[in-house]
């Protein structure tokens, strides 16, 4: 990867490389823009490159130059969605698809009581050195939530694929399992569940800002003239409203990349809101995966004369 980036950057074929930069700790990689071939030494691709680079292209694509971007299979769905909404110009991109075995979640290490991490060796079994001794863990125990329902190893848009054959044999978990479980509960139980989760929200907007479908120039919640702007969740209602509207605004456009949940400092399973919409859309209006191609239209931008009436909600879930 680095060699390819070096090649394209020094030849002038691209003006910038969007990739990951290694950090100060074994796991703290950051998305970074490289404009200098020398600096590519700091480029890295490992199990902690979970962040989805596609959204950065909105900003990086503004220059009059080509940008080389490395995308994991699931990131390409987001990019397609951005392309379909004219947020990024395809001709400005050189997309290299890279393989992915599923990315790792350092929070999962921490919740297992592993602290003081000073070194991580990545293999099927992770060897973790800490200030307090070494640990070993199967890789699959530490996967990011989003990787538990992997969309597969196919890149949906790319100029070339780099083959270090990292392609994963990822298990297709049932991504709707938790949504279905909640649907099966009583409204009171669901209410309690979501209150518990959403009350943690500190309104940092990380979920929104990282979301490759949230591409408004100014979010309604930031726009003093919108009538709903708020910097904080002053009450439970505002917690609910923010999350309902955020999810609604990306309904039909969300590719389920899972970044929202990954970035939430409070560990709120935000993706369960998006998935609810995805499940409903697929259930009511036919199977739909946003970002499958750049030509797809959100199901909220079209309709069918025979669409279900809203009372389908009651019919579907019985009277609980």
């Amino acid at each position, binding site marked *: 990867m680095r060699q390819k980036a070096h090649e394209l950057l020094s030849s002038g074929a691209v003006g910038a490389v969007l990739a990951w930069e290694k950090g100060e700790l074994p796991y703290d990689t950051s998305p970074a823009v490289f404009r200098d071939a020398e600096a590519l030494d700091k480029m890295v691709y490992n199990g902690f490159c979970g962040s989805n680079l596609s959204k950065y292209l909105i900003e990086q694509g503004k220059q009059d130059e080509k940008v080389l971007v490395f995308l994991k299979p699931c990131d390409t769905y987001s990019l397609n969605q951005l392309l379909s909404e004219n947020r990024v110009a395809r001709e400005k991109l050189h997309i290299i698809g890279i393989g992915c075995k599923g990315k790792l979640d350092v929070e999962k290490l921490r919740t297992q009581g592993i602290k003081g991490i000073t070194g991580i060796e990545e293999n099927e079994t992770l060897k973790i050195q800490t200030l307090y001794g070494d640990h070993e863990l199967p890789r699959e125990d530490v996967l990011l939530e989003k990787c538990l329902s992997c969309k597969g190893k196919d890149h949906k848009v790319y100029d070339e694929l780099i083959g270090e054959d990292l392609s994963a044999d990822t298990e297709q978990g049932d991504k709707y399992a938790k949504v279905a479980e909640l649907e099966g509960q009583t409204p009171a139980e*669901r209410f309690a569940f979501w209150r518990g989760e959403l009350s943690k929200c500190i309104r940092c907007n990380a979920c929104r800002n990282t979301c490759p479908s949230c591409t408004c120039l100014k979010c309604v919640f930031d726009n003093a003239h919108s009538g709903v702007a708020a910097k904080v969740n002053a009450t439970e*209602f505002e917690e609910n409203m923010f999350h309902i*509207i955020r*999810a609604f605004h990306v309904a039909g456009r969300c590719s389920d990349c899972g970044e929202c949940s990954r970035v939430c400092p409070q560990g709120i399973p935000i993706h369960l809101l998006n998935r609810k919409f995805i499940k*409903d859309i697929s259930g009511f209006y036919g199977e739909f995966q946003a970002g499958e191609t750049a030509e797809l239209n959100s199901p*909220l931008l079209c*309709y069918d*004369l025979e669409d279900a009436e809203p009372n389908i*909600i009651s019919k579907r*879930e019985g009277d609980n």
Partner: protein
Amino acid sequence: MQVKDQNFKPLVVSFCCNWCSYAGADLAGSSRLEYPAEVKIIRIPCSCRVDPLFVLRAFQRGADGVIINGCHPGDCHYTSGNYFTRRRMTLLFSMLDYLGIERERTRLEWVSAAEGARFAKVMNEFVGKLHEMGANKRLGDIRCKE
């Protein structure tokens, strides 16, 4: 089941499209058909003008139920508006339900300009149901309560 509070007056915000449902409500009026005064109608050009934000806003401010009324599918003055409404509101209502907000508090109805009687009936039914359920406690804003 909670005890029905006889004094409870559920507040209902009823969005009506200008071409069908608002006229239907007018007809209910000119036919002198009664429905509860707690139903307050907001005129909009088309049911597709209803933003989910408006629905939430009503609940925030103390509404106990929100009902959106539009032309019957196929009869939209603007051809397709109510089809978009149908998708949007189905998803929104489903999400509210998912969050544990009682699904009986939201409703989408098709009421034509000729259906004054139906308008009154739907409003009566809706308010009746809200009466059974009691006040909206799950989606109100505490600041807006007295």
